[in-house]
């Protein structure tokens, strides 16, 4: 069976085209399922925050999560994706960013563009995750309208600048300072955590959280098991999140900075990080809520160098994070009177800083494709940029909302419960749970 050279060449061309298309489709399929898996993060936040609320506020807390998720999707379509493409060099608009404008030919069904939609989707879920980080901290006293404005600004604008600067192959934090943050500990978690801190300062504590002499009252949520399941769902969803942080090329995997990597590396270190954080948090608190928050701390602690760490080192880095962050949360509550209902400032804000700095200590010297090698100074300096980028807009915007009366619910509504005030349905219409909680001495209100 002899074939002519032209016939063989035609077959070769056909095979190459098939291979190329298979690679493209594999890439689409991979990010499709990463995006789907990330939805578990939002199911998790929903359960976790409703459980962490008193029964009288359960649905209002959940409503926040649903609204943030729903509004973030169009907001990221309208402006977020363009910001990511436009500002890797700082505040000047980069060439080619027009592809991210909502009226671009790339921002809809296009037979020559298999990438834009799937990456927009993954980044939209990253954005919704960032906004949801703030959500739990402010439960039981924030107005849903004010929260929605804050969530949109955080998720569709603020963190996107951070991602463009430091979680982008051409981001200036990498090209100038050598930042390495493959799992977005800084771009997502530090920014969201410090944005939340700025909001909490203006929002103030829940009624009854602090006594006149400055001592602290615990305000227990009404369903700890639901919170624990929610936290486990968030951890599960982070496998989608972190999978979405690695670039599939067909031949190999690359980090978002174009350095070679393997998905195996992410698997090793994500799991070891989860375990380290859980064990560390257990050691210092004995509290299952903090143990599951420790799982998140563990992921975040190892996230910047998931591609580089020896797994045993990732375990210890995350163990350290799991030990330190609950104590930092205690300091925020007891010394600074910051009523962070779920500890998100410590878990995400300081957890992100911890991860970035640890990568500066233990992964320094690795080469970047663009920019200097990873260094302690570069990581620390970048962490400071993320802290400021998160805190300043969070503080200023929440101050403006406070001044116009859109930040906090009325005292009467807070005491009665936000579900009764704002939500047309009841969480537990046939249950005695709300009544039981009304008499819970650990949930003090002025009415008591």
């Amino acid at each position, binding site marked *: 069976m002899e074939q002519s050279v032209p016939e063989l060449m035609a077959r070769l061309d056909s095979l190459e085209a098939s291979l190329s298309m298979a690679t493209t489709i594999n890439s689409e399929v991979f990010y499709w399922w990463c995006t789907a898996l990330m939805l578990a993060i939002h199911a998790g936040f929903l359960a976790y925050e409703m459980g962490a609320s008193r029964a009288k506020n359960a649905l209002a807390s959940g409503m926040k999560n649903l*609204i943030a998720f729903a*509004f973030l999707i*169009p*907001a990221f379509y*309208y402006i977020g994706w363009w910001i990511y493409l436009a500002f890797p060099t700082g505040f000047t608009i980069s060439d080619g960013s027009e592809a991210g404008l*909502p*009226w671009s*030919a*790339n921002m*809809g*069904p*296009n*037979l*020559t*563009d298999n990438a834009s939609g799937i990456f927009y989707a993954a980044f939209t879920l990253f954005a919704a995750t960032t906004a949801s980080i703030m959500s739990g901290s402010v439960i039981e006293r924030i*107005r*849903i*309208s004010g929260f*929605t*404005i804050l969530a949109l600004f955080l998720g569709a604008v603020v963190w996107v600048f951070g991602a463009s600067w430091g979680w982008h192959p051409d981001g200036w934090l990498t090209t100038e300072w050598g930042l390495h943050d493959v799992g977005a500990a800084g771009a997502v978690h530090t920014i969201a955590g410090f944005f939340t801190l700025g909001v909490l300062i203006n929002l103030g504590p829940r009624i009854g959280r602090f006594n006149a002499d400055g001592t602290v009252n615990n305000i227990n949520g009404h369903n700890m098991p639901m919170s624990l399941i929610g936290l486990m769902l968030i951890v599960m969803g982070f496998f989608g999140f972190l999978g979405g942080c690695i670039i599939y090329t067909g031949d190999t995997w690359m980090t978002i900075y174009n350095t070679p990597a393997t998905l195996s590396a992410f698997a090793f270190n994500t799991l070891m990080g989860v375990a380290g954080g859980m064990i560390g948090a257990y050691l210092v608190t004995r509290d299952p809520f903090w143990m599951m928050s420790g799982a998140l701390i563990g992921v975040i602690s190892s996230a910047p160098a998931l591609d580089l760490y020896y797994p045993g080192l990732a375990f210890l880095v995350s163990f350290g994070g799991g030990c330190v962050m609950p104590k930092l949360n205690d300091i925020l509550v007891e010394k600074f009177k910051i009523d962070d209902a779920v500890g998100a400032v410590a878990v995400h804000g300081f957890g992100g800083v911890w991860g970035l700095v640890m990568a500066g200590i233990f992964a320094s010297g690795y080469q970047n494709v663009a920019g200097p090698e990873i260094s302690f100074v570069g990581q620390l300096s970048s962490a400071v940029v993320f802290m400021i980028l998160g805190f300043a807009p969070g503080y200023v915007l929440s101050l403006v909302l406070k001044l116009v009366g*859109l930040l906090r*619910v*009325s005292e*009467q*509504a807070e005491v*009665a419960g936000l579900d*009764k*005030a*704002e939500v047309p349905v009841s969480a537990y219409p046939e249950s005695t749970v709300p009544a039981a909680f009304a008499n819970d001495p650990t949930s003090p209100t002025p009415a008591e």
Partner: protein
Amino acid sequence: MNSAPITSWEGAEAYFTFADKPALLVALTLVGVGVCIWTIASMAIHENKAYKDM
């Protein structure tokens, strides 16, 4: 209403509805943004009323 920007699938690129009418896409974007802002405003009005009624 013929919303198709293509007359044949041969060589088609962006084929979504109104892909050949960028001004209309801008208008749809503005309407979408308006819907979001309007809903947030209605949210604030609902809250104000709810607190007043308590």
